[in-house]
């Protein structure tokens, strides 16, 4: 039987994901760590890893090039890929928040004539304000969103925060939480059905490992 392909996200989720796999007896440590390797076969022969940008992980999985992937809820709810999400993994917890410069944090947003909001999450941001009947101008950026209010490009921002330190250092305060996120295991819909036994076993193992780690084992 061919190995299962697992798409892993570059960046902050990679370390904990590799450590979760290690807990299960798999070794993906040659990915990242300054290595330029993007495809790697596990020594057990059961898994093949593909390293992709977090935004691209659901793309690989939706097209079925990868059977499984690990990615944050923030990316999933922004892109709404047509995939299964069988398991949340307990790491990579963060929140998607609306933040404003400290000076404006008490302003009633509903009474503001023009809201310009910088974000990497245009769909979630627009849905959030649409539900409240507010027309806003969304400025899509691909990084360093904190810069937008400081330079006058936007008067608010929507971005993920972990500890909130970056916001504070840039004179911003959280106004509201749009979404809570954590790393999630996703699966291609067809692969999940065609390779039910193997994927089912892996999901159960990951569930067990996630529970054990939450119960005080080594945290990723």
């Amino acid at each position, binding site marked *: 039987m061919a190995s299962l392909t697992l798409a892993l996200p570059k960046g902050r989720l990679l370390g904990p994901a590799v450590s979760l796999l290690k807990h299960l007896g798999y070794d993906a440590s040659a990915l990242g760590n300054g290595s330029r390797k993007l495809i790697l076969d596990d020594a057990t022969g059961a898994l093949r890893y593909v390293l992709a940008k977090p935004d691209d992980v659901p793309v690989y*999985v*939706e*097209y*079925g*090039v990868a059977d499984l992937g690990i990615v944050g809820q923030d990316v999933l709810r922004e892109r709404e*890929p*047509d*995939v*299964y*999400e*069988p*398991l*949340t993994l307990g790491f990579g917890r963060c929140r998607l928040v609306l933040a404003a410069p400290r000076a404006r944090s008490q302003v009633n947003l509903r009474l503001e004539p023009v809201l310009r909001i910088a974000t990497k999450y245009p769909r979630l941001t627009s849905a959030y304000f649409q539900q409240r009947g507010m027309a806003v101008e969304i400025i899509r950026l691909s990084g360093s969103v904190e810069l937008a209010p400081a330079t006058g490009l936007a008067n608010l921002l929507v971005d993920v925060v972990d500890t909130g330190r970056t916001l504070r250092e840039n004179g911003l305060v959280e106004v509201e939480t749009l979404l809570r996120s954590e790393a*999630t295991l996703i*699966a*291609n*819909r*067809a*692969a*999940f*059905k*065609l390779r*039910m036994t193997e994927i089912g076993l892996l999901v159960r193992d990951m569930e067990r490992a996630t529970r054990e780690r939450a119960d005080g084992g080594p945290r990723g």
Partner: protein
Amino acid sequence: MVTVWDGRLPHGVADIFGVDAARHIALRRALRDVFTSWAYQEVIPPTFEYADTQAAELSPQLREEMYRFVDRDGRALALRADLTVATARIVGTRLYDQPLPLRLFYVGHVFRHEEPRAGRRREFTQAGIELVGAGSAEADAEVLAIAMTALQRAQLPRFQLNVGHSGWFRALLASVAIGDAAGERLRIAVDRKSSAALAEAADSLPLSEPVRAALLATPGLSGGPEVLQRAASLAPNAEAQEAIARLEQVYARLTHRGLADYVALDLGEVRGMQYYTGIRFEAFAPGLGVPLCTGGRYDGLLAHFGPSLPAVGFALELERLLLALSPYDLPSVTNAPHVVAAAGAPRAAWSLLQAARGRGWRIEEDVLGRDRQALLAHARGRGAQTVWWWDGEDAVQVIAGVAVRRLTLAELARELERAPEPGGSV
């Protein structure tokens, strides 16, 4: 005003030509043969209709994806986004009093304005059947058997049909008085197979313990016949029991036909809830991340257009099936000519050429007046096995590779008649 054409095509459409077009046509023919061999009759619905006609019975998502335009009298028209609705309209308005059950099939293009993503195109080909006027498990099993036969006939080596029943999840929702929004939250959680979201949604509702247990188990209710036993033990009410009983009947009939190996039972699929009333199924093939074929029972659809009649059917997507077939060694499909014939055929050769074409030979006649060398080179480039070079009024040189034979036209006619198949020996 003259504009320079920039060569663009809209997103989501494709040009199909050469061997790919030949495969496309061969596949359509194979599917038509399967459907007619089960005594289904073809319907050819119009490409566009009034938008209202279609929108009435399509899911909200499909409704948004329709290509709409305005007729000169101001009425909204739409390209067909689906062929089932059009077939239902034909039955409801024209065929409803014909002997039942009606067995109908269609092969045609449909149009949907979808965002480009895995396996989605904006124009694609559906081949499907509708069995109208029979609500039995036997009818369900026939439709499933035809879907499997079609995939076998397409020479797809491996595939799986996931068969479920829309009544299962509907029964779970109906057993508790919850609003549409809460039901939709549960449905989305099951659809994503997200145990965390499902537990969270279930915890926020006043569910009885049996319903809660059945709901939480639903995403995992897929596999072999043991799934039905598990589901039967979980079923919290009569409606859920009925859904399982129907699936058992259908599965037994498929086992009886030797088709059970292709089937996975799957109660965890909860799409198209507003449409399906009984069994529902999807076919999957390795390497293709999207279903090849979807279908099920929709006993509520026909009543919209005429008398209420039960109906069950499926639609298969040709382009996806071709994609699923592409990794395998396909039976060679060729549209190369068997024969390239020189220009200036003698008068007596005309009936011979027509007779050969009538028997399936592909014969290309030179219309550029090429000389012998040029014609041989051209024939090689076209992949033709044989060149006929006319030799006077009554003879022909049959050139195959380096071999040259001089035959009278009468001799050639006799050889053609004896040839076992087009292109054979001559």
